[in-house]
């Protein structure tokens, strides 16, 4: 059973790691995190038209001294692959990806499934370390550790949000 406080915990872990700049193409699941960020006057969340635009924007923000996170569905990971590879990975620019995982266990929409199954392999192919926190406790411990690792390595990292954490989206 999903704990509805997961989104608040995730927003807090991001903010605790000094992330104040956010970009997003919203989906049903990450919108729960966005609500906390939009309500915080210290946070700036920009809605972009396509996820790779968010990669560019947050890479620029980091070069100018601000840490950023990109909130999106895994479909947006597909839209962002070249920007992540040839900008962030090539130039060693860190960025936290928060990716809601559609197309996996319990999925009702067949169109979501191929990207859902490809999400982990795409991140692996890019050398982007990722976690799948299954509980609020995992969000707090693994999420915090992953973000710190990302800034130590100076590379993107990804928090993939499984339905067992978020409750998923019901058809």
């Amino acid at each position, binding site marked *: 059973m999903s704990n509805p406080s997961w989104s608040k915990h995730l927003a807090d872990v991001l903010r605790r790691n000094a992330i104040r*700049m956010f970009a997003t193409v919203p989906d049903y699941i990450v919108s729960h995190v966005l609500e906390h960020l939009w309500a915080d006057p210290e946070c*700036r969340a*920009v*809605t*972009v*038209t*396509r996820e*790779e*635009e*968010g*990669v*560019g*924007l*947050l*890479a*620029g*923000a*980091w*070069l*100018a*001294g*601000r840490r*950023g996170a990109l909130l999106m569905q895994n479909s947006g990971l597909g839209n962002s692959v*070249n*920007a992540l*590879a*040839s*900008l962030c990975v*090539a*130039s*060693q*620019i860190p960025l936290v990806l928060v990716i809601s995982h559609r197309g996996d266990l319990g999925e009702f929409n067949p169109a979501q499934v191929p990207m859902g199954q490809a999400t982990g392999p795409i991140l692996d192919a890019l050398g982007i370390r990722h976690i799948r926190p299954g509980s609020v406790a995992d969000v707090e411990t693994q999420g915090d550790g992953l973000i710190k690792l990302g800034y130590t390595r100076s590379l993107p990292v990804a928090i993939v949000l499984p339905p067992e954490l978020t409750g998923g989206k019901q058809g």
Partner: protein
Amino acid sequence: MSNSLTRATATRLLAERLTREVVVSNLGQASLDLQQIADRPLNCYTFGAMGQCSSVALGIALARPDVRVVCLDGDGSLLMNLGSLCTIATVAPRNYALVVWDNEVHQTTGGQPTATAARSSLAGIARGAGIEKALDARTEEELRRAYDRIFTEDGPLVVSVKVMPGRAEGRLDRDVVGHARRFARALAALPASEPARS
């Protein structure tokens, strides 16, 4: 109508005016011209992620509202990321100017025509996206006037500069990580000032 301006001349006319501005340049020809003509630590060269140059510059402008940011994009690259114009219009940073070297071709790959060679106008698209200060510059005089506005007015501004096709001279220094680190350090060391003038 043939274009009379070269990208190198247009880059030189910009470089003459630079003091504490950030310049973000598109991969390929725009970065090569900028490196050759006016290499400086506050230049942010991009080497990959075709289309993302205007977005990188937007992120810098949002993170440092006290610094004027001038982005040097290309027509082929901006056409890949037209949604960026909508985001720029929505966020509307006062310290942001997007200059597009519009040579109407994909220069780096051999000069294949882009959509601006036929019917599309980037300044027109920018206006449609909601950026009111969207200009065309076809002559040196028009370009000088456009730069006057970039350096004195609130943004966002978009200037589509019609330039002659042609490859830049020399070889690009592709120390990708080194240039990124040099830029980040230089910008961090730049003292904060009042937000870009109103």
